[in-house]
């Protein structure tokens, strides 16, 4: 089963230049298979940098990462990524976006249709198959993004503040729906956010990072029972974790 190990990871932007910036320094982490982990921290703590390196967008200056003992290098369909920005291809319909990954690998029309049906339903977009992304709301486009990554059947989902641009209500809906999908598939998720409540609601474990350079400051095991319901956000246990983490983030 996939397990990600991050070992002595350091990344410096502009190494060798006049003013190099060390984004993350000496990160050691293990993401257990099937777990839901969040990385939180104020902006500039290097959480996105860390995630992007896990996706293979660029290589760390020092240290290494492995997935199933295999060194992470470059892109791989095993590591799917949901971006902060809207990454739905506007020139493809919802259905074509969903089946994009399998189509790249030569999936037959029938296979594509099956995948489209399954994941469009799973992310709650039934009836919107043939719509253009421009006809959808921001939240619905995010659903396409998530469905497209799931439909590609990765082992790990890397999510970079996927709900950052959504309004509060939509965000809560998306969080609950994401948890349901995660529960059904049990794929490892690494979720980057600056929203403490979002991290608590979703995660088994929360990694708190401090900024400049990005280091791990604290790891919080979230013992809240699953499945998680929206009401939990107001329980004493939930709020206690929130208070503790809030104190740790630099304001």
């Amino acid at each position, binding site marked *: 089963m996939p397990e990600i190990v991050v070992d002595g990871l350091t990344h410096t932007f502009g190494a060798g230049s006049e003013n190099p910036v060390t984004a993350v320094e000496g990160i050691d982490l293990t993401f257990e298979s099937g777990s839901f982990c969040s990385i939180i921290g104020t902006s500039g703590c290097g959480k996105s940098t860390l995630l992007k390196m896990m996706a293979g967008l660029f290589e760390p200056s020092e240290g290494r990462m492995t997935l199933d003992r295999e060194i992470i290098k470059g*892109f*791989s369909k095993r590591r799917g990524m949901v*971006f902060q920005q809207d990454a739905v291809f*506007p020139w493809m319909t919802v259905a074509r976006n969903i089946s994009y*990954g399998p189509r790249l690998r030569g999936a037959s029309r029938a296979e594509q249709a099956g995948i489209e049906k399954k994941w469009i339903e799973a992310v709650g977009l039934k009836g919107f198959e043939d719509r253009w*992304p421009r006809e959808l709301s921001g939240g619905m486009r995010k659903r396409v993004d998530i469905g497209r990554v799931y439909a590609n059947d990765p082992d790990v989902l890397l999510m970079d503040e996927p709900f950052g641009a959504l309004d509060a209500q939509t965000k809560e809906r998306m969080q609950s729906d994401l948890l349901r999908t995660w529960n059904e598939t049990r794929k490892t998720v690494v979720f980057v956010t600056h929203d403490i409540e979002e991290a608590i609601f979703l995660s088994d474990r929360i990694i708190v990072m401090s900024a400049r350079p990005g280091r791990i400051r604290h790891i919080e095991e979230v013992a809240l029972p699953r499945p998680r319901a929206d009401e939990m956000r107001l329980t004493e246990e939930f709020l206690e974790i929130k208070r503790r983490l809030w104190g740790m983030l630099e304001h």
Partner: protein
Amino acid sequence: MMRFLTGRLALGVLSIATVLLAYHLATIQPDNNPSLLPPITDIIGSFITNVTSGSLFSALGASLFRIVLGFFIGTTCGLVIGCLVGWYKIAEYLIDPLIEAVRPIPPLAYIPIIIIWFGIEEFSRVLLISIACFMVSVVNVIAGMKNVPQVYVDAASTLGANRLQVFRTVAVPAATPFIIAGYRIALAAAWTTLVAAELIAAPSGLGFMLQEGRRYFLTDQVMMIIVIIGSCAFIMDRLFRAIQARLMVWSEARE
């Protein structure tokens, strides 16, 4: 009724009608010299004469042939080279300085050298139009390729697309709005270049008929050809916009 009168089409017709009326009023002034400013009836008369004699059709045919062929060759080369330069760093470093250096030169500046090398042949005229279309389209294709949002490229890559697949499934469609805009400008450039080329060196075509009109003092023919050129360019641009609307059905900015 009011809505119709203030509608887009109605106002367009109104503005054209106003210009025609003004022209007409100018031509009926007692001191107007009709050989300098021919009345509308003379222009229509010239149109009818040239249609019945067939000379307008052969001129139009010759010109359209040059436009279509030159446009096709020029924009196809522009598309291929633009894609390479816009997408591959090596091609960019190799070819982009060349394009930038040549870009400010108006295509008409090549007329003398083309005539010296290839003579006053059909090939020379098509070549000139091709160059004009190439220069306009290549710049737009490059801009389109350079403006492909990085997040789409990253998304496709993380989903498992290789470099060629990213190019085919992301870069080309993402650049389509730029490419089509470039093609429309290229079409306009093709008309400009065509008329200039035919004015200087052609035994046929609309530009040739303009030149003939000047030589024999047929101002009505000159006016008529100007209207014909305007109408043709307008119709072709409309056709292009229809194609654009079809290809760009996914885009926020379809106009």
